[in-house]
């Protein structure tokens, strides 16, 4: 990806974050002018940035948002929840587009209509709420945009009235019917370009003409043309009506820059079955139809077809009846639904235009219109047929222009103008080669200062046209159709909308923002390191010159101390670089709580404290998902409805407090709610029901132990699976996720008062302190953070209780496990000379467990690498580390082993 785009995405994400924050901030303090200005500036700048790229969908939505905020800023419009909702939606959409740009490098065309819809919805606030707005942008009416977006089969009888469709020549309608029968879907598209479109570099005619799957089109004026003297030629008053056999995705793709200027109606093929001609009422029609209806009822379709063919030969082709018969034949040939045939026959009998909107034919229409739209690549007709005629008309008029061109001074200008018109017309007619003849004629005319050569040239063209194409359509067919490959973005149709929710994964920001001071410190340390390194060649020279080994050893040790200090400081410095504030995770909770509480109909105030607390990037990232789950649980199960709360004598609004603080080398995070709390009795019952514990145990355990059962695998207290928590994730997953980063979680709850979850995580995890221990001649590492102490116990003080070992240590019974047994090594633990066992006391949940090893060695700092590849599945190890002597140390995961 190019650097500019990378920069854009990174900046865009920052803006989106700050926009969301400001929007929510303004909800509680709508009169905060400074926040309002910052909000406006962020949207404005983001829009400006997006304009540097080809992201019309994004720019459009942002532009609408900017205009809306401008109105709010100037107090033409009041800030409201609904408005904030709409803006947040729009920003989610923009965020989704950013994600798509990042992963695919571009925005899929299928987003165009959603973008238009969102922009229209934003603009609707301005049009509906403030009529006084003087410069409310020429917004696309929302219903128009909705029509664009609607793609539901319900709208099939929104088809344009029959009078409009009658403008389409019968043969084209028949062709369209055939296309629909072959599986294409038909659309009636009304495209009204912006009045100022010529100033925006748009070419509506070209755009319409190039529409893939174009079957027919016409251009009309939106309003009566003003007198010539007042006509503003640069104001576009055109309206294009197009009949298309095309897929929705292709339309979105083709018109992606102007989706708000379209009205799109899916057209049932039946709506096109409209006979035309003179003499609707005719006795022979009535007789024929009555007989035919009978044949239809009896199912003798072959007889019906035969009768129709005979009748068609008898009828004059210009008659209405003939037209109706031709349609009937086509319907029969394409195996249209019987209901449709009947309706057509009835209309022949009654001499009336068939009314396909009539109730009861909807299913017939649905059958007749094959449902699955194939995105078959269409070769577009080179021109709208009507446009062709116009071109010839323009050519003919040039004759008159040339005839009037007499004034000598103006003659060259006249000639040039006429020649240009000629060339353009010829090109439009698909005869670009003939423009050379025009150039020749123009040169001759200029040389002789007479219009005659050009006029003669024009006459020749007109004469040729008369000879070759009485019907201009022929010229169309001969035209070299420039056929743009219809890009079938068919994958876009079924894609979900911008399914981003506040609780989804963090946007993939891979840029780390680092305080300048941290980098400077690292820079200084590198400088020191370079100096320290320079001492080594000096030492080497000393060794060569024959210094004593003892002296050398002393100097090397001294130098080691220097380098060691620098390395430690560098390590610390780089860890600082990796530190992120927890606000990185906390920042999305205001939005999450707002959205979910609204959905649940609860009132919740969120209090966030200690956002500046820092921890290693990996820890912070590992925190995100569990925390979301916990907060959702609080919202969903912990907090009561306002009514319940009032009944319980609490404030209507619940409270969730999210706090973070640092304690020694750990980050403590607390999620506290003042909801209904967890009922231990309920948990006991549930646990027994689910077979997690038996009834006896349930009676024996303490309330706290009962509450802790929510962390047991497969335990979920939710009475019903709600929309919010129905993700199949229980608290056991939360616990597991935290344990992966050596974190712990504890739960306290009091019925009726609230629940508090405490998460404790290490500050950093890139470097671990491990203790090296020995077992059966092999060395293993054990993470220091789970080691409580090391003791040597006389063998005699180890007791065997049932099948397991235990010892009394400081007045408490500590269960003992020989490491050899845990690892499946068949060797008894070794004792030292004093007949003592080496026991490593480790934390296991809230208890201590003693692990019997052969011997302790030193502790050291290692960089722990998780096992990967095939070893990844190996339980019992948290990773491997490279030791100073080049050997590899396997680090045990005692939590899993015990």
């Amino acid at each position: 990806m190019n650097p500019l785009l990378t920069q854009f995405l990174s900046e865009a994400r920052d803006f989106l974050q700050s926009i969301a924050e400001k929007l929510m901030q303004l909800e509680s303090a709508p009169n905060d002018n400074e926040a309002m200005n910052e909000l406006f500036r962020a949207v404005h700048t983001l829009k400006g940035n997006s304009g540097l790229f080809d992201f019309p969908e994004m720019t459009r939505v942002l532009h609408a948002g900017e205009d809306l905020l401008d109105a709010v800023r100037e107090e033409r419009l009041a800030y409201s929840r609904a408005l904030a909702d709409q803006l947040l939606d729009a920003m989610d959409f923009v965020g989704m587009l950013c994600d798509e740009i990042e992963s695919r490098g571009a925005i899929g065309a299928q987003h165009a209509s959603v973008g238009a819809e969102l922009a229209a919805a934003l603009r609707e606030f301005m049009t509906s709420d403030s009529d006084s707005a003087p410069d409310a942008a020429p917004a696309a009416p929302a219903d128009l945009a909705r029509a664009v977006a609607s793609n539901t089969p319900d709208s099939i009888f929104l088809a344009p009235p029959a009078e409009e469709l009658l403008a389409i020549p019968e043969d084209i309608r028949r062709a369209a019917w055939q296309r629909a029968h072959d599986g294409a879907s038909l659309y009636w598209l009304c495209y009204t370009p912006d009045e100022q479109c010529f100033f925006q570099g748009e070419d509506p005619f070209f755009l319409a003409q190039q529409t893939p799957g174009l079957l027919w089109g016409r251009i009309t004026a939106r309003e009566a043309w003003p007198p010539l003297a007042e006509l503003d030629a640069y104001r576009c008053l055109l309206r294009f009506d197009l009949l298309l056999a095309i897929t929705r995705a292709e339309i979105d793709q083709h018109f992606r820059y102007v989706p708000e200027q379209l009205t799109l109606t899916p057209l049932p093929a039946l709506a096109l079955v409209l006979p035309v001609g003179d003499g609707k009422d005719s006795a022979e029609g009535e007789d024929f139809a009555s007989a035919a209806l009978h044949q239809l009822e009896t199912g003798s379709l072959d007889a019906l077809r035969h009768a129709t063919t005979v009748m068609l030969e008898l009828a004059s082709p210009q008659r209405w009846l003939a037209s109706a018969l031709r349609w009937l034949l086509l319907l029969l040939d394409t195996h249209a639904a019987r209901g449709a045939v009947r309706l057509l026959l009835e209309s022949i009998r009654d001499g009336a235009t068939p009314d396909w909107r009539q109730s009861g034919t909807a299913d017939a229409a649905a059958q007749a219109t094959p449902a699955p739209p194939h995105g078959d690549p269409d070769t577009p007709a080179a021109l709208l047929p009507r446009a062709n005629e116009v071109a010839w008309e323009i050519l003919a008029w040039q004759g008159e222009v040339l005839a009037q061109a007499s004034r000598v001074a103006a003659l060259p200008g006249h000639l040039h103008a006429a020649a240009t018109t000629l060339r353009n017309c010829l090109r439009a007619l698909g005869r670009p080669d003939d423009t050379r003849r025009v150039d020749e004629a123009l040169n001759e005319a200029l040389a002789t200062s007479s219009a005659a050569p050009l006029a003669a040239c024009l006459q020749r063209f007109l004469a040729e046209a008369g000879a070759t194409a009485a019907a201009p359509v022929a010229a169309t067919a001969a035209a070299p159709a420039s056929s743009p490959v219809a890009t079938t973005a068919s994958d876009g149709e079924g894609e979900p909308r911008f399914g981003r929710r506040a609780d989804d994964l963090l946007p993939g920001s891979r840029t780390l923002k680092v305080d300048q001071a941290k980098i400077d410190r690292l820079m200084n340390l590198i400088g020191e390191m370079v100096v320290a390194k320079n001492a080594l060649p000096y030492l080497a020279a000393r060794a060569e010159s024959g210094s004593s080994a003892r002296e050398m050893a002393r100097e090397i040790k001294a130098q080691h101390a220097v380098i060691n200090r620098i390395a430690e400081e560098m390590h610390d410095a780089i860890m600082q670089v990796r530190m992120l504030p927890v606000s990185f995770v906390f920042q999305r909770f205001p939005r999450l709580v707002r959205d979910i509480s609204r959905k649940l109909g609860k009132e919740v105030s969120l209090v966030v404290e200690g956002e500046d607390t820092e921890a290693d990037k990996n820890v912070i990232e590992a925190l995100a998902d569990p925390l979301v789950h916990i907060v959702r649980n609080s919202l969903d199960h912990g907090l009561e409805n306002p009514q319940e709360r009032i009944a319980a004598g609490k404030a209507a609004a619940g409270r969730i407090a999210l706090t973070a603080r640092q304690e020694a080398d750990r980050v403590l995070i607390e999620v506290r709610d003042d909801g209904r709390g967890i009922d231990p009795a309920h948990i006991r019952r549930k646990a027994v029901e689910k077979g997690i514990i038996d009834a006896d145990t349930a009676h024996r355990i303490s309330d706290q132990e009962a509450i802790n059962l929510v962390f047991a695998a497969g335990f979920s207290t939710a009475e019903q699976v709600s929309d919010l928590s129905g993700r199949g994730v229980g608290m056991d997953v939360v616990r597991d996720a935290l344990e992966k980063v050596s974190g712990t979680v504890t739960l306290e709850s009091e019925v009726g008062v609230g629940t508090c979850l405490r998460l404790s995580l290490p500050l950093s995890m890139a470097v671990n302190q491990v203790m090296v221990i020995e077992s059966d001649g092999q060395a293993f590492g054990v993470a220091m953070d789970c080691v409580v102490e090391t003791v040597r116990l006389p063998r005699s003080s180890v007791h065997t209780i049932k099948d397991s070992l235990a010892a009394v240590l400081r007045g408490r019974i500590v269960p003992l496990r020989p490491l050899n047994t845990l690892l499946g090594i068949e060797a008894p633990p070794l004792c030292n000379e004093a007949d003592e066992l080496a026991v490593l006391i480790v934390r296991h949940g809230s208890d201590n467990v003693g692990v019997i090893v052969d011997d302790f060695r030193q502790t050291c700092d290692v960089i722990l690498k998780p096992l990967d590849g095939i070893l990844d599945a190996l339980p019992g190890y948290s990773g491997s580390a490279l030791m100073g002597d080049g050997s590899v140390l396997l680090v045990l995961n005692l939590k899993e082993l015990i």
Partner: protein
Amino acid sequence: MKRILIIDDAATVRLYHRQILEKAGYLVEEAFNGLEALEKALQAPFDLYLVDINTPKLDGFGFLRELRSQPITQTPAIMISTMAEERDRQQAAAAGANDYLVKPVRPEQLLAHVRPLLGEVST
């Protein structure tokens, strides 16, 4: 080499303009807002300023007025904005801008406006 200072609060826009100008052989520096730009301008004068109107703290107009108040800092400046109204152009001219461009500016367009102000013949 001619030195140009880009003043814009949007990093993307700064990078965009920087890429165009550096490719054309200019030395480019950036400033986030008018205040920062003033400081840079006083440290070492530039040959040209590209000024975004809407910047935080001190906006483009303010920056230009300040710049024009000192006889030693009469460097040419191009104002760049998303607003295309005639009123905005006049305001920019009144504040002392030599030229006015509407965002987004195409590369060749930017260079065509930059070169004459630096006394170079536009190609």
